[in-house]
């Protein structure tokens, strides 16, 4: 079963899973056993170790893969048969190829750094083990997602990471708002998964329904090596079917990768701890949609119309989210919208046909967005968990390492470059995307070149990106005021509701226990145990930001990942772009449908244009925010201009959707229950019952209950019968 070095991939998959199991089963026990300090160190180490080891193995495997010739970079390994019925076979198979290994490296590499960071960030958390349980499980699912050789396994990972996202967003579940954000994330993703499953079904139906044309024998309809070659055969001449498949799958991608109609879970997902935002909601999980588009690129390339839709949705989302970012004051929300916006860029790339550029941006984005999130986490950590930028200012003085790293991230996401010489990570990938889009070779539908349109929109968004990121950086690190010094006592917290428990300590009420009077003792804690529990809970009360607070630089476990990511953000793009390394790596064989899509539009000086966009955005940003927070964005929302107020509320899109779904749906469902189910359907059932009872009621009057009455009736009946028979006999006698 195991006979090549590639079989080490099972170790990559297995290690995070083992980590998950260890934490789930023994994590709490380890902390209890070794005491809080040592125990947490141990648990944290046990969380980082498997991921880091997996990363090391991943590097080795990638190296080995890179050594083989491009057409041989494709290894399939099978562990067991997952679903096997006569009409469908979904084996547990992994596919090792450049695309999956790239993702594996991002997931385990960035993942290990973020795990390390989290050991510091979460160090005061009581549920330490639970956090790393979820985090390790997430890595495991994410690896299944990218390594699986069929859509079934992809879907395991797809929903599995959604589950971990749900659990981690709701990690601080005592605040009901976090729980609701978690629900929102899961449910909105489920809407996407709905499209995704239908797309998968359609693929199976189309392929299996044309079985005789294809000669596929073993029913592995969901495996990539069956889908991709055969889809071309079946779908090439049928644009409508191809378009439907592509669009259905894209709905799934929209959910997971937070694109326009379904993006609205991602900003709320910031309720989770910051390492989660960095790992799941910036670097890895949200790029799963882009990964899926890359993996199934043949299906999307078959439909120019779907490609146009993807490019347009990407461009619109990029623009929309960038505009919203201007209205946000929560540092994590700014980064969240920036993530949505950057994901939009990736979809522009996929729509325009430069899939590898999308993956390139996934990679660089993982570097600098993880960096920015971790940096913001460090800031939040230093500022007593206050996330509002209006309370920040001049933090570079207190947080030099974090600040420097964040500045690198800011410049990288802005895509700043020295034209023709050197650029930061974001520059190269964005350049490739915009170049591909502006070359306008693919997403053409009904005579309109949507690729070109989205390219120009993207260029504009690049300028906006630079501008709002400048806003964030300046409000946080620069300026003259340390604004938390002017804090009024309390009440400024718009975004971070207090964690105080609302329990009423009604001791007398405890007497009400044991209503049954049996066996209740072992159901409930005794008074002394209750006291102990309450004491424990009171220990971790929350500090709040106050005017006398002096931010301190974070510990090494937190700033070390920042530094690594900053270096990657600086040199990563340059290294991968050199000699078209990444492009050659990610797109080995020519795609069967599209030829190579150029990223060098003719007649457009893209290098200078994008430099102008980045530099102009930054310049404009400095111009506006260089002097710190203006009144127009202060605490008093009424002084904000209408545009910014609308941007703050996501242009009321979220309100409308949530209102319609939760409010409207609730009213509809309640009505359905009370007025239809209970009244009409059940009413009919009970109506039949009442009818029977009514008819019976007519006859019950006969039952007087008097024995003598019954006796009389009996005699009367007997006489009646007797008379009848006498009459009968006499009649026949007469007849004779």
């Amino acid at each position: 079963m195991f006979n090549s070095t590639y079989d080490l991939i099972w170790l990559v998959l297995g290690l995070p899973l083992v980590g998950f199991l260890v934490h789930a089963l023994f994590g709490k026990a380890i902390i209890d056993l070794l005491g809080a300090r040592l125990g947490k160190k141990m648990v944290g180490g046990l969380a980082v170790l498997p991921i880091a080891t997996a990363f090391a193995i991943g590097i080795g495997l990638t190296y080995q893969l890179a050594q083989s010739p491009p057409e041989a970079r494709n290894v399939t390994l099978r562990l067991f048969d997952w679903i096997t019925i006569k009409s469908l076979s979904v084996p547990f198979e992994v596919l090792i190829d450049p695309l999956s290994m790239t993702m594996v490296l991002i997931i385990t590499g960035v993942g290990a750094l973020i795990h390390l960071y989290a050991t510091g960030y979460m160090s005061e958390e009581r549920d330490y083990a639970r956090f790393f349980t979820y985090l390790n499980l997430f890595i495991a699912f994410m690896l299944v997602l990218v390594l699986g050789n069929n859509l079934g396994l992809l879907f395991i990972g797809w929903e599995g990471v959604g589950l971990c996202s749900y659990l981690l967003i709701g990690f601080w579940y005592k605040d009901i708002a976090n729980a609701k954000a978690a629900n929102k994330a899961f449910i909105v993703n489920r809407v996407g998964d709905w499209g995704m499953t239908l797309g998968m079904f359609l693929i199976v139906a189309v392929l299996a329904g044309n079985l005789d044309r294809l000669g596929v024998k073993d029913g592995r309809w969901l495996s990539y090596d069956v889908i991709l070659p055969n889809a071309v055969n079946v779908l090439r001449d049928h644009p409508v079917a191809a378009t439907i498949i592509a669009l259905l799958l894209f709905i799934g991608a929209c959910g997971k990768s937070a694109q326009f109609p379904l993006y609205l879970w991602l900003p709320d997902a910031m309720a989770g701890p910051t390492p989660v935002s960095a790992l799941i909601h910036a670097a890895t999980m949200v790029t799963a949609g882009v990964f899926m588009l890359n993996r199934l690129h043949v299906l999307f390339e078959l439909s120019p119309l779907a490609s146009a839709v993807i490019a347009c949705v990407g461009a619109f989302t990029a623009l929309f989210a960038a505009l919203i970012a201007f209205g946000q004051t929560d540092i994590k929300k700014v980064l969240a919208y920036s993530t949505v916006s950057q994901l939009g860029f990736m979809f522009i790339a996929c729509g325009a046909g430069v899939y590898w550029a999308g993956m390139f941006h996934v990679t660089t984005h993982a570097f600098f967005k993880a960096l920015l999130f971790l940096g913001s986490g460090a800031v939040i950590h230093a500022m007593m968990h206050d996330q509002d930028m209006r309370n920040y200012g001049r933090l570079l003085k207190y947080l030099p390492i974090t600040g420097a790293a964040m500045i690198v991230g800011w410049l990288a996401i802005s895509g700043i470059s020295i034209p023709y010489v050197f650029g930061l990570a974001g520059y190269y990938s964005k350049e490739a995307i915009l170049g591909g889009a502006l070359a306008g070779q693919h997403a053409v539908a009904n005579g309109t070149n949507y690729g070109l349109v989205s390219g120009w929109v993207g260029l504009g968004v690049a300028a906006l990106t630079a501008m709002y990121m400048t806003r964030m950086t300046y409000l946080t690190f620069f300026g003259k005021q340390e604004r938390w010094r002017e804090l009024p006592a309390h009440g400024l917290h718009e975004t971070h509701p207090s964690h105080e428990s609302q329990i009423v300590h009604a001791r007398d009420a405890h007497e009400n226990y044991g209503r049954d009077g049996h066996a209740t003792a072992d159901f409930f804690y005794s008074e002394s145990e209750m006291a102990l529990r309450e004491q424990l809970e009171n220990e971790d009360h929350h500090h709040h930001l106050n005017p006398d607070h002096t931010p301190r630089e974070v510990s090494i476990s937190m700033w070390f990942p920042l530094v690594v990511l900053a270096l990657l953000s600086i040199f990563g793009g340059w290294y991968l772009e050199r000699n078209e390394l990444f492009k050659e790596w990610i797109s080995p064989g020519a795609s069967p449908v599209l030829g190579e899509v150029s990223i060098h539009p003719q007649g457009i000086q893209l290098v200078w244009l994008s430099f102008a966009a980045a530099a102009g955005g930054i310049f404009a940003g400095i111009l506006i925010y260089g002097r710190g927070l203006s009144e127009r964005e202060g605490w008093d929302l009424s002084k904000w201009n209408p545009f910014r107020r609308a941007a703050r509320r996501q242009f009321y899109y979220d309100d409308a959707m949530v209102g319609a779904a939760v409010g409207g749906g609730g009213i509809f469902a309640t009505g359905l229950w009370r007025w239809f189910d209970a009244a009409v359907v059940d009413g009919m059932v009970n109506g039949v019952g009442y009818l029977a009872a009514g008819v019976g009621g007519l006859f019950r009057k006969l039952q007087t209950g008097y024995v003598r009455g019954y006796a009389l009736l009996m005699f009367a009946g007997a006489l009646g019968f007797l008379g009848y028979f006498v009459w009968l006999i006499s009649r026949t006698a007469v007849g004779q």
Partner: protein
Amino acid sequence: MTPLWQYLALGLFMFTTGAIGVVVRRNPVVVFMCIELMLNAVNLTFLAFARYSPSVTINAKNQVQSWMAGQMMVIFVMAVAAAEVAVGLGIIMAIYRLRNEVDVDEMSTLRG
């Protein structure tokens, strides 16, 4: 030999008396006695018919059976009557213990 109609007339008289008694009396014990009267009227009729039935002689065995049938029925009736009285009196006793009175008109809880 007494003619058949006299037996039947006596049976009719007993039965009518019993029937009227069942309907008009309110004491369950008396009602029971009336029921006994009715049953015995029937018994008498059975016996009379058995005695007077023309013997259909197919063979000796069948003849015996035919005049035995009525008497057999009487034995049945007596057995059933005894069982009925046992159960009935038991119920009456139970009701008496429960309510301290026995009146059939009061026993009407099964009214619909």
